[in-house]
């Protein structure tokens, strides 16, 4: 009997006090809702990289398995309900939310749909796992919406740190026609100014022929118009045409952004800092490689789990406060992850990768910050347009 009691003795890291909980006859449940509204899939030229149907959800499933291993020792379990809705079905999402008592909700949908759902549901804690939109971390932020997916600005700041460090100062940009491409391009321009660079020349991507056959000719012509430059940025968030630019440019120059050197929250080539273990656990569970949206879902639920343990199962307000002001989460990226308490964005390193290796992990050495070097990526507190976290 003493053994049984002992098994639930654990030292609370906060304040060094030990807490004892009884044997869990009735296991404590921590309820999670995974709410997905399908986003329109944009037709792309290549069929090589279909978007996995369980993108995001597979990461959440792995986190549930990870958390419940700990839960098995500590007498709790995460229980996740999944609601998968068709394009634009906000109404059904509203009623699914009303019908669920889950305090923690993962949002896999567009930025506008997220803000519509969060408004009027302030008693819960939401996690954005799908949208890079800087406005969601800025003027459209919500006090109960946290972001585990990095923002466009974090990704483009990582790229700009890299080119600045390389002294590749003469920048060119080709931008696709998707609205996401415009947002990424806008973030690139802002990031270039932030680091004292500028994008000297830009071209829109207007070709609509079959590039698989004529990239050699077409890309030559387009990139001739750019004149001379050091590196070519490509804003192509759906990887529609970017993959055909490499080796087809007029000047022999590196490509960054949509293809070539990409900046993401997670990539299959991450293997340092113990990441190989996470990658193989994910592959075992889902039969494919982990992507950044999967990672965002995984890390959101890992953060909730960590907060539960470190606060001795606080109520949702306590969990939110701990996430915003105390957490140091291990996330296989070499630095402790935490949340910015002025806009709810998870601080995290951004991997700069090509198809077969990690090139660098931003923030790069030398990019300092008074508070935390990770805050050299993305909107910093003084420039933040977010006021919802103010009081």
């Amino acid at each position, binding site marked *: 009997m003493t053994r049984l009691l002992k*098994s639930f003795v654990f*030292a609370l*890291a906060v304040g060094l006090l030990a807490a004892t909980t009884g044997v869990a006859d009735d296991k404590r449940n921590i309820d999670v809702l995974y709410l997905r509204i399908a986003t329109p899939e944009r037709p792309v030229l290549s069929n090589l990289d279909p978007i996995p149907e369980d993108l995001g959800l597979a990461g959440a499933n792995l986190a549930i398995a990870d958390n419940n291993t700990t839960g098995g020792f500590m007498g709790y379990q995460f229980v996740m309900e999944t609601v998968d809705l068709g394009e634009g079905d906000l109404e059904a999402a509203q009623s699914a939310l009303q019908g669920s008592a889950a305090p923690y909700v993962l949002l896999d949908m567009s930025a506008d749909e997220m803000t519509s759902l969060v408004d009027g549901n302030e008693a819960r804690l939401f996690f954005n796992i799908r949208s890079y939109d800087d406005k969601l971390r800025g003027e459209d932020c919500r006090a109960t919406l946290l972001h585990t997916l990095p923002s466009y600005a974090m990704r483009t700041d990582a790229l700009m740190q890299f080119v600045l460090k390389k002294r590749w100062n003469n920048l060119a940009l080709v931008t696709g026609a998707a609205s996401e491409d415009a947002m990424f391009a806008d973030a690139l321009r802002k990031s270039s100014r932030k680091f004292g660079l500028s994008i000297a020349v830009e071209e829109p991507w207007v070709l609509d022929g079959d590039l698989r056959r004529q990239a050699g000719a077409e890309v030559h012509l387009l990139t001739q118009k750019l004149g001379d430059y050091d590196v070519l940025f490509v804003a192509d968030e759906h990887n529609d045409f970017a993959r055909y630019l490499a080796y087809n440019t007029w000047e022999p120059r590196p490509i960054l952004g949509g293809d070539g050197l990409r900046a993401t929250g997670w990539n299959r080539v991450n293997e340092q800092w*113990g990441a190989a*273990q996470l990658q193989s656990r994910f592959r075992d569970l889902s039969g494919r490689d982990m992507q950044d949206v999967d990672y965002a879902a995984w890390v959101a639920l890992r953060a909730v789990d960590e907060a539960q343990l470190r606060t001795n199962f606080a109520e949702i307000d306590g969990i939110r406060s701990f996430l915003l002001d105390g957490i140091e989460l291990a996330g296989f990226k070499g630095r*402790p992850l935490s949340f910015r308490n002025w806009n709810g964005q998870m601080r995290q390193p951004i991997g700069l990768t090509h198809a077969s290796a990690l090139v660098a992990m931003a923030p790069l050495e030398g990019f300092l910050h008074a508070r935390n070097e990770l805050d050299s990526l993305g909107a910093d507190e003084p420039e933040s347009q977010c006021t919802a976290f103010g009081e």
Partner: protein
Amino acid sequence: MRLNTCLAALIALMPATAFSDEIWVSNEKSDTVSVINVDTLEVVKEYEVGERPRGILFSNDFKYLYICASDSDSVQVLDVEAGKIIHDLPSGEDPEQFALHPNGKLLYIANEDDAVTTVVDTETHHVIAQINVGVEPEGMAVSPDGKTTITTSETTNMAHWIDTETNSIYANTLVDARPRHAEFTDDGSKLWVSSEIGGTVAVFNTSDQSQIAKIEFEITGVHPDKIQPVGVELNADNSLAYVALGPSNHVAVVDTATYEVLDYVLVGRRVWHMAFSPDGTKLFTTNGVSGDVSVVDLATNKAIKSIKVGRFPWGAVARPTN
């Protein structure tokens, strides 16, 4: 010049058991184990072993080296006298670290990919038990009285206390993020656990698993995020603890009575684990990123030499020969 070469060749040819104490180092990315002569501070031998060797330790009589060959999914046994691998032990999937019971017979192995601890009988080569533990088990230690085995799990952030008689967990202790290593004091009264991402080392009272101290580290000019404790070693009289601080490239020297950090010693890049020379005057550290071993003179707390070994040196263990 020629004399030196001859001398080196001669030393290399001599049976390793003849004169000098040795430090054995596992090289994670070259699938080898390097042997360093403690007197000459040179690599005198290199053995090819299984894939991705990490944890290594000697049998109590130092006749056999046990090697966690993580990607070969086995624990290999190297006969030191014969200089070759004599057999593999069943180990469960992806063995990373292990600890030997004082009886010299039972190996407790952390299976990183499987969330289990495997108990293997080194004499019969049979798996005796598998114990479910947290996600990514790594740190392993057996108490000096042999009654308790510790497994730390990196993602579950716990030290699991396992009763070696029943092979069941009797307590779970929460520690800071990503625990990597566990070490008992020689009297068995305390347990040290390092937390890589938390950046701390916790010390527990083993009689009731209560936390006695939590040690934090601070190195001038090094960002706190880069201070990532991994290996922990206690000196012979247990008065000092040495903590390898990963990518901060330093080893901390901690007073075990006051838990104060006395000194930080600069070593190679990404320091993982350590081993004392058998005479206790030197500390050898494995530096994963720089691919070498730093030799620290413990009288002055200065690194006096770095020794090139294989790729990604990981584990280190001493072999006294006298």
